[in-house]
């Protein structure tokens, strides 16, 4: 709590105490006025002062001014407790608002405290401590265990484990050693690292993320624009109504005091604060909370669109799959042996498939065991292993040689291994699904995403296999990049809600732009991905996507609750005031009480869940 807030709190507590005392004292007449005037002035002096000043500045619709009129008016009408209550609770609301805003700001910035305040740098042969802004590219920076990496760089010396949680939202220690790139915002866990700064502070990952989250507030959602417009007209209209209520009925013979009292109630309800603060507060909390989970949302409008998602379109390679070819199955009587033969035979080949085979076996290669190696480009290799001749290659090639081969069981690239008599087995190599893809797709479906589509440039059979494994029912294969844009537009045309496209952000920028929400994965260190997309998942897998959608929905729901609740209560209280059913206390509740409830509700977006 700041000093200003503490002073305010003391004033409020004192005044509330005196107010309570005054309510119980059996006073009347002049002494009653004094008893209530003391707590009133204690808490309301600044309101009165600001009210007078605002009149001089020509700000007639200033809240202080309105509250001053309402409370002084209540005093004049002899409703002393109501007069005190108006300012007392107005100040309570003010205090609460500033406390809540400060608190959420601090909570977001603490969790976003990605950048250290000082850095140790080597200058003229000595380690000196400077602020991170002063480091230029190429300088050597020392990071001790427990410190944050201040700038993007490469490791010159040392090895250590990094905690990337502040960037990715999940604790996965990453081991680094000389030559590896490191990103600012990670925490150095175990060893001393000497880094070469590759980017300036402002250009480094952590600073960029911070700037992105701050600027997200500039992209306002429809709800925010609505609230702003609403607030612009709400106050003048309520004040006009207050004037009419205070003047018209008495002119037609009603009692002046009753109607002026009712007009004052309208003034108390006239502040749109609850709405104006709670909507941006909710989005701020939502975006801040998302960034802690490794999800960067580039604006409230994007969060709103994400909340309304009903179609999710995935790119295949690199998004649902790893984009790396691996041995996925070995079909043979002795799979281990077949894989060993294949790896040994292929050890001199530079073909990507040869590499996959070697990695798939994982055993120690031996040049001595292999002789008579021959590579037939595009078909396969033949070689002697431990003196026995083997053929390792494609289906066509072995069929030509007269082997009978088993039919395809699974999709992917098939490599056959044969000796001189018969085929020993078949190894299937394919792009592997990320472990998180299938669970993420089903999580999205549970969230009520109606349609899940996969777009790919690959052939239909490979695409279909991936789709089936992920639980995706709609596949568009053999697409050129421009076909992807066309396909996405066609999907958007029939979608009820918004269409989310998820890709790696590198090759599919045009598709990202065409979607309502473009989501890029693996955002760390990739400027292109951050640039092209609306939402960036810092980790290179999809598990954050369902989280992002439910977080967006939660935020959206809170915003809607706040808007409907605040407007409804205010309207209701105004109607009741107009008919004389509600009194000043209800009006105070409709102003401050609603603010407090809306702010508390908005702060739920910051919760860790």
């Amino acid at each position, binding site marked *: 709590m700041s000093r200003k807030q503490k002073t305010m709190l003391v004033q409020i507590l004192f005044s509330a105490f005196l107010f309570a005392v005054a309510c119980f004292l059996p006073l009347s007449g002049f002494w009653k006025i004094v008893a209530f005037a003391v707590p009133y002035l204690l808490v309301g002096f600044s309101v009165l002062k600001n009210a007078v*000043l605002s009149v001089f*500045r*020509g*700000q007639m619709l*200033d*809240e202080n001014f309105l509250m001053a009129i309402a409370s002084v008016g209540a005093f004049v009408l002899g409703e002393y407790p109501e007069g005190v209550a108006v300012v007392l609770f107005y100040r309570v609301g*003010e205090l609460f*608002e*500033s406390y809540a*805003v400060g608190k*959420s*700001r601090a909570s977001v910035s603490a969790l976003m405290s990605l950048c250290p305040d000082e850095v140790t740098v080597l200058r003229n042969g000595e380690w000196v401590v400077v602020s991170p802004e002063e480091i230029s590219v190429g300088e050597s920076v020392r990071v001790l265990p427990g410190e944050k990496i201040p700038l993007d760089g490469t490791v010159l010396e040392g090895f250590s484990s990094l905690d990337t949680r502040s960037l990715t939202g999940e604790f996965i220690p990453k081991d680094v050693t000389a030559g590896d790139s490191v990103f600012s915002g990670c925490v150095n866990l175990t060893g001393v690292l000497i880094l070469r700064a590759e980017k300036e502070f402002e250009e480094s990952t952590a600073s960029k993320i911070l700037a992105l989250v*701050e*600027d997200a*507030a*500039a992209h306002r959602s429809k709800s925010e624009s609505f609230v*702003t417009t609403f*607030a*612009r007209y709400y106050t003048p209209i309520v004040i006009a109504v207050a004037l009419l209520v205070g003047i018209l009925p008495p002119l037609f013979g009603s009692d002046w005091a009753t109607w002026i009292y009712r007009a004052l109630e309208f003034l108390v309800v006239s*502040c*749109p*604060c609850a709405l*104006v*603060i709670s909507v*941006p*507060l909710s989005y*701020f909390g939502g975006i801040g909370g998302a960034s802690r989970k490794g999800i960067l949302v580039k604006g409230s409008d994007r969060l709103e669109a994400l909340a309304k998602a009903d179609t999710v379109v995935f790119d295949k390679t690199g998004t649902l799959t790893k984009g790396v070819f691996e041995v996925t199955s070995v079909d043979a009587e002795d799979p281990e042996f077949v894989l060993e033969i294949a790896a040994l035979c292929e050890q001199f080949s530079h073909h990507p498939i040869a590499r996959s085979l070697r990695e798939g076996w994982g055993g120690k290669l031996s040049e001595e065991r292999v002789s008579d190696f021959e590579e037939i480009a595009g078909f396969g290799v033949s070689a002697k292993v431990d003196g026995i001749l083997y053929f390792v290659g494609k289906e066509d090639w072995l069929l030509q040689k007269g082997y009978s081969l088993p039919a395809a069981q699974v999709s992917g690239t098939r490599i056959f291994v044969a000796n001189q008599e018969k085929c020993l087995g078949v190894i299937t190599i394919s792009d592997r699904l990320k472990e998180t893809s299938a669970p993420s797709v089903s999580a999205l479906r549970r969230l009520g995403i109606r349609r899940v589509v996969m777009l790919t440039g690959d052939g239909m059979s490979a695409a279909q296999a991936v789709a089936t494994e992920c639980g995706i029912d709609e596949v568009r294969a053999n697409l050129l990049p421009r076909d992807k844009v066309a396909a996405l537009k066609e999907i958007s045309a029939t979608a009820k809600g918004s269409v989310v496209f998820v890709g790696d952000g590198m090759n599919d920028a045009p598709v990202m732009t065409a979607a309502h929400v473009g989501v890029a994965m693996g955002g760390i260190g990739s400027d292109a991905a951050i640039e092209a997309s609306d939402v960036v998942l810092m980790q290179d897998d999809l598990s954050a996507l369902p989280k992002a959608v439910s977080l967006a929905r939660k935020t959206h729901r809170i915003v809607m609750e706040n808007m409907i609740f605040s407007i409804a209560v205010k309207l209701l209280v105004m109607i009741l005031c107009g008919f004389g059913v509600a009194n000043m206390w209800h009006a105070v509740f409709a102003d401050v009480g609603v603010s407090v409830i809306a702010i508390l509700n908005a702060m739920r977006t910051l919760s860790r869940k």
Partner: protein
Amino acid sequence: MKKSYKIQNLCCANCARKIEDGMKKIPGVIDAKILFMVQKLNLEVEDGALEPVLAEAKKVAKKVEPDCEIIG
């Protein structure tokens, strides 16, 4: 031309809205946005108009909230 400024002592969201509305009416301002939660002002002005616009913007802010300071 776009510029971003820090704002201090802006403690009411509705005031921020009023200040923003006021700033948008200043001649030479293309767009003005006050980011209340991060206490920032994003100002987009016509080229060369920055100095007078900024002076006027500060006045607008003071008029609504006397404590409010635009830094820079």
